[in-house]
């Protein structure tokens, strides 16, 4: 009996041990699988026929990006990661993912662009350029040339987004270090300053020579003024003009609770697309654009009440989007890969709002605006969505990814960066 007992006891023990081992094996397999999958993985939703693949991830605060003629992607980091401020991402085997990732540049920032054999990149005070050789390598990654220096950066709207035209000019956003040019920034009851002294050195787009070194304010021209802050901008080669996306003012309700409720404050003012010419004035800080009334409204700091119009000398936007979505990227599509409707149209990357609280946040997507003959030819539509991780992540503002930069590849695909986690997606059609 005792023999029998001990025999069955041992069999059971053996079975238990086996199943434990099996379980342990299963667990380790599962955990391996999980570790290969990024817990922040999201699935982007795109129009039919498009697909998105993760080109690279976990790169840090990846802001704007640009693609060289050979397909190399250069992306600017907001701040240094492992001492580097720019990554070169190279897909060496054509699988749509970057295998060869190398870093250089000892400054953080936002702007990056390639023109005439140079890679231009900006910090929050300066613009540098690196020469590219015939083999598409950076000649001297440790010693860039300084193109522009001494630009204002005062803790607000400091990103110096850049664009270049085909005429040897470099355009630099110098954002206003203020919300609405009050005597005391963002302080309830503080009046607006008229004229706004900030506009002398910020709150606009400055034009510099692309090939002249060590330029500063005196060497440049204030190309356009009355722009609170621009992060997304692109030279439109079909109109031969600069298009910009303005970040509209914040806090209408906080500062003027008697004039604006939280819902109006979440929706207003519009995030505006402007087409600029030399001498353009877009009206900040004196007015804002109300996309619901389709009017330029006098800012409350300057005597406005939410209804009085103003800014007769200020130009109207080309497109007016809902408030606070934070347009950080702009690209006019010139590729041949996407369907015909996308040709010469605009992709706008919305970083996502924060200034809509306590109302739900919004944005974290890429939209498309069709263009014909240099003007919008239809309503804008959401092109790529799902960066945030879902409606709850969007509403709370705790988005998993925040799309920021956009660039077109030689094959007509586009790349979109995310500065929350450092993911780069490649979006292609029909392959």
């Amino acid at each position, binding site marked *: 009996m005792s023999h029998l007992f001990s025999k069955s006891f041992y069999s059971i023990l053996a079975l238990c041990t086996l199943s434990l081992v099996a379980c342990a094996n299963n667990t380790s397999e599962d955990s391996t699988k999980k570790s290969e999958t990024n817990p922040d993985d999201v699935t982007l939703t795109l129009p039919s026929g498009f697909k998105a693949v993760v080109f690279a991830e976990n790169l840090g605060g990846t802001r704007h990006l640009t693609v060289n003629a050979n397909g190399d992607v250069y992306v600017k980091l907001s701040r240094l990661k492992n001492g580097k401020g720019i990554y070169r991402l190279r897909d060496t085997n054509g699988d749509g993912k970057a295998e060869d990732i190398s870093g250089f540049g000892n400054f953080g920032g936002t702007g990056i662009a390639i023109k005439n054999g140079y890679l231009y990149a900006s910090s929050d005070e300066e613009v540098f350029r690196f020469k590219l050789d015939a083999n598409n390598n950076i000649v001297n990654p440790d010693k860039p040339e300084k193109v522009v220096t001494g630009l204002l950066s005062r803790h607000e709207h400091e990103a110096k987004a850049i664009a270049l035209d085909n005429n040897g000019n470099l355009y630099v956003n110098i954002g206003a270090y203020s*919300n609405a040019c009050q005597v005391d*920034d963002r302080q309830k009851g503080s009046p607006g300053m008229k004229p706004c002294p900030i506009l002398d050195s910020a709150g606009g787009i400055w034009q510099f020579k692309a090939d002249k070194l060590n330029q500063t304010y005196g060497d440049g021209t204030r190309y356009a003024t009355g722009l609170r802050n621009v992060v997304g901008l692109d030279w439109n080669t079909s109109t031969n003009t600069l298009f910009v996306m303005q970040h509209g003012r914040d806090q209408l309700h906080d500062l003027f609770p008697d004039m604006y409720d939280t819902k109006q404050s979440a929706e207003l003012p519009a995030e505006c697309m402007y087409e600029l010419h030399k001498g353009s004035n877009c009206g900040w800080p004196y007015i804002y654009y109300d996309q619901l009334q389709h009017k330029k409204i006098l800012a409350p700091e300057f005597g406005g009440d939410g209804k009085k119009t103003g800014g007769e000398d200020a130009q109207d936007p080309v497109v007016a989007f809902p408030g606070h979505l934070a347009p950080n990227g702009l690209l006019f599509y010139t590729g041949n890969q996407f369907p015909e409707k996308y040709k010469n149209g605009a992709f706008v990357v919305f970083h996502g709002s924060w200034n809509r609280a306590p109302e739900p946040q919004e944005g974290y997507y890429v939209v498309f605006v069709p263009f014909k003959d240099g003007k919008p030819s239809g309503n804008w539509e959401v092109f790529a969505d799902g960066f945030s991780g879902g409606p709850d992540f969007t509403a709370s503002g705790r988005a998993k990814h925040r799309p920021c930069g956009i660039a077109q590849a030689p094959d007509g695909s586009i790349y979109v960066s995310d500065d929350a986690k450092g993911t780069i997606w490649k979006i292609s059609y029909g392959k």
Partner: protein
Amino acid sequence: MKINRLLTVTGSLFLVSILMMSQTKPAQNTLKASIERGKKVYADRCLTCHQLDGGGVQNMNPPLTKTKWVLGDKAQLIQIVLNGLNTGVTIDDVEYHNVMASHKDLTDLQIADVLTYVRNSFGNKAKAITEAEVKAVRAKMK
């Protein structure tokens, strides 16, 4: 032996805390009222930037959750509300650089309430800030 000691210690702690609770009951009521009032001030003045959950906004507005700025030196925290902040702060290796306005137009009690609310919300647990403490910091600044 060890378990016995542990039990004794836990037991006495329990007793002490019961005693403390009964003694601090009026103070707790005051605390609760202050938090309630502070919540309203937070909604009017702080929520847009620091958000409903106190988590702030990436690279712009610092979180108010479990940071030394909120849980540490009371005088420094009061000063920030009175003066605003335009130098930016770095928390856990992330820079936050948006401008914070001065809120010196709030009363001493409103500032005490809102800071007490913040120090006892979003997972924070710290001592209340009193009207007298705000008054003292404000007086020094003049």
